[in-house]
């Protein structure tokens, strides 16, 4: 098994394009487990942490660019991000233990291709755009278009996610992420919902996005759910419509951690609660 740690995205793309059985290493919290359990046995590991752009957080075009290999612990400690994107940060910090937080990354969480990835609904709600680098150069893809299904990504041969761009935040906007797990910590989402919204001076919702995880083969952007609350003050009728819109797109699995009926019910409840938290945060922003 070869190991390479290129210092440029072009270098990583060339290595990945030239090797049939290569895997990308960011934090390793999924890859090393898969290697250990013989799920994967790559011929080449390409560590992307040596690429500067994957490891930094910078302001860009009024928003924030976050490297794909920045860890959860680093995100939490960033002085401004937590204030501007509390939902994204709380979602990233729900992944695993303190030890896992020291390694786990946003890029890895997305590219592991799990429908239950906690940070992905929050990134989708936030309108995050992934910047990919590949043999043909750079391209941008909205996060909701990166994942196609379990373990299936829209990345082309040789492409890596280098960073995410989170758009500028207007005044009176915020976000929130909630998930349900059968215990209080260290578990994988049965349902996860991210909501991002903005309000005007009167408290009317002017824009919203809802990301929904763990209840379909991939994480979904639920436009109908956003439409249900835009133009409202999130009164009870709007909350009911939000819940109904979220439940309408759920197509969950049925297992011992949550039945289909339970997951659909909880998805609506979490969407309402996450929207109320985002609204409360937006009022004080």
């Amino acid at each position, binding site marked *: 098994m070869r190991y390479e740690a290129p210092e440029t995205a072009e270098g990583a793309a060339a290595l990945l394009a030239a090797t049939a059985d290569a895997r990308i*290493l960011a934090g390793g919290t999924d890859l090393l487990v898969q290697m250990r359990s013989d799920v994967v046995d790559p011929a080449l590991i390409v*560590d992307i942490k040596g690429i500067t752009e994957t490891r930094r957080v910078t302001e860009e075009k009024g928003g924030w660019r976050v490297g794909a290999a920045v860890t959860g612990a680093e995100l939490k400690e960033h002085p401004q991000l937590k204030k501007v994107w509390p939902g994204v940060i709380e979602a990233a910090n729900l992944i695993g233990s303190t*030890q*896992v937080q020291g*390694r786990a990354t946003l890029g890895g969480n997305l590219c592991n291709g799990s429908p239950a990835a906690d940070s992905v609904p929050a990134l989708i709600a936030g309108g995050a755009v992934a910047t990919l680098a590949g043999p043909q150069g750079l391209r941008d893809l909205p996060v909701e278009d990166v994942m196609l299904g379990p373990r299936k990504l829209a990345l082309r041969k040789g492409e890596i996610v280098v960073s995410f761009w989170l758009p500028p935040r207007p005044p009176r906007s915020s976000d929130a992420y909630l998930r349900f797990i059968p215990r209080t910590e260290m578990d994988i989402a049965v349902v996860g919902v991210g909501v991002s919204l903005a309000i005007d001076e009167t408290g009317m919702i002017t824009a919203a996005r809802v990301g929904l995880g763990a209840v379909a083969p991939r994480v979904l952007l639920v436009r109908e759910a956003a439409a249900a609350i835009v133009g409202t003050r999130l009164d009870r009728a709007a909350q009911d419509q939000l819940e109904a819109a979220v439940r309408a797109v759920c197509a969950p699995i049925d297992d011992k951690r949550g039945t289909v009926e339970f997951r659909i019910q909880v998805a609506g409840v979490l969407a309402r609660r996450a929207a109320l938290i985002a609204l409360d945060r937006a009022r004080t922003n």
Partner: protein
Amino acid sequence: MAKHHIEATVNGDAVEFLCETEETLLDVLRDTLHLTGSKEGCASGDCGACSVTLDGRLVCSCLVLGCEVGGRRIETIEGMAKGEDLHPLQRKFLEHAALQCGICTPGFLVASKALLEHNANPSDTEIRYWLAGNLCRCTGYDKIVTAVKDAAETLRKG
């Protein structure tokens, strides 16, 4: 494929070793450097028995490749006591009987030390969440939380 030649710092000492790509930092620590204080419980990042710090950041050494640590600073349980002089956390774990079989203890001590460097006066809830990635099947955790709080108080008094 030739082995990787890695130079790093472990508990303040410069070390160099050879490793295969698939060897984890835990494999290197235990089998090559013979630092067997870090334990392998699950090898999947769930139990925390292999906890070490990497450039000051708490990680599971079973989820780090040996070839990733070139030029980095690693701290393990072996670096915690200064000769015969136990770290306050180690003393308090003994005093409060915060261990029984002891397999999880190095991981708990390394993780608790990282917590107290980050938060000198953690609440019970903060301790329990910080240590959620360290599993103990003997103590029921209460004695560990008590020991960490007591050690924190000792350290705050200097």
